[in-house]
């Protein structure tokens, strides 16, 4: 059976696409799938360094699409997680080097070899985005709970719809304490505004930075709340559709609990 192509995208940059791609990819591999994660951000590669595989790059996705090497030569095997492979972006080309036709052809071959192909799309709505979504079976749009990220997400969601893809939303960097105080949009607020199905909710987590500092997979950090959230998202993608979406919570002090009971906090 052919594998599935999942594209991870966003309107605004810096909302956590690369972290999400590497984490969901790693989690899917740990759940027994053969997974390729592909960095489609040509000219600005990052997925390799987040995954700690930057020293092992020989070929890249541009080489594959332009027939300069085979998929198996470009796919770097992660030594910590079985069945996880990275195909990095090219750093020297510009983003116009890939054609949608070329990407489509390679996508077809990738689907024969992997259960899941996860594409880390560049932010925004230009050429790189087109190339990432051209063969996508599913899409996850990432946003954070702030006005600019939500507005830009709406634009990308509209574009995906126009390409007959029904995306799901992943809200990243939720700070439950601030949501409780009314300082941050809750996931319900975001969903009211965007009216889209949810892929999952990921809390703000210190481990994300430290794991990326060391190039370690977030989902292997047992105490990482974000890592756990990504693992659950991957399980839902992988067929456990009735696994409930966990809403990030914060430890409430006694005072908070009392005031909530009396309806003081909004």
């Amino acid at each position, binding site marked *: 059976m052919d594998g599935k192509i999942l594209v991870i995208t966003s309107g605004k940059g810096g909302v956590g696409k690369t972290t999400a791609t590497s984490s969901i990819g790693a989690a899917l591999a740990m759940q027994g799938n053969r997974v390729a994660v592909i960095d489609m951000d040509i000219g600005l590669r990052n997925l390799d360094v987040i995954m700690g595989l930057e020293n092992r790059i020989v070929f890249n996705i541009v080489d594959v699409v332009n027939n300069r090497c085979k998929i198996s030569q470009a796919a770097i095997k992660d030594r910590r997680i079985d069945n996880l492979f990275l195909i990095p972006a090219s750093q020297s080309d510009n983003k116009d080097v890939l054609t949608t036709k070329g990407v489509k052809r390679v996508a077809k071959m990738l689907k024969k070899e992997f259960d899941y192909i996860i594409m880390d799309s560049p932010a925004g709505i230009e050429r790189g985005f087109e190339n990432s979504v051209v063969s996508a079976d599913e899409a996850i749009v990432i946003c954070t709970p*702030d*006005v600019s990220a939500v507005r830009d997400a709406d634009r990308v969601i*509209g574009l995906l719809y126009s390409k007959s893809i029904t995306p799901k939303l992943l809200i990243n960097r939720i700070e439950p304490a601030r949501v409780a105080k009314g300082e941050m*949009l*809750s996931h319900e*607020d975001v969903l*009211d*505004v965007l009216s889209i199905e949810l892929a999952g909710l990921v809390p703000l987590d210190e481990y994300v930075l430290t794991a990326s500092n060391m190039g370690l997979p977030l989902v292997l950090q047992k105490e990482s709340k974000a890592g756990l959230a990504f693992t659950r998202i991957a399980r839902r993608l992988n067929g456990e559709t009735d696994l409930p979406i966990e809403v990030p919570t914060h430890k409430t002090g006694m005072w908070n609990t009392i005031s909530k009971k009396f309806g*003081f906090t909004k």
Partner: protein
Amino acid sequence: MLSKLIKMFTSQNKESSKSQAKKRLQFALIYDKLEINDNTLKDLQNDIIQVISRYFEIDRDALSLEIQRGEETSALVFNTPILQIKRR
């Protein structure tokens, strides 16, 4: 503790920043969707001219096509002087 207590009672009536964010977003998205880019408008203008030209002779240089935004509704306004009716 006391300041927290005071703040809690006083902030009751003040709108939280997140509900402001939500309202602003909802309006922004509605307006974003009403925006038409220049190319679309130009294509539309050409199409309208083609259709009208079947029935009227119009002054192509004097016509205008614009979107007028009101408080609650937006209107597409096409204005053209008629030079002559085409007899058919």
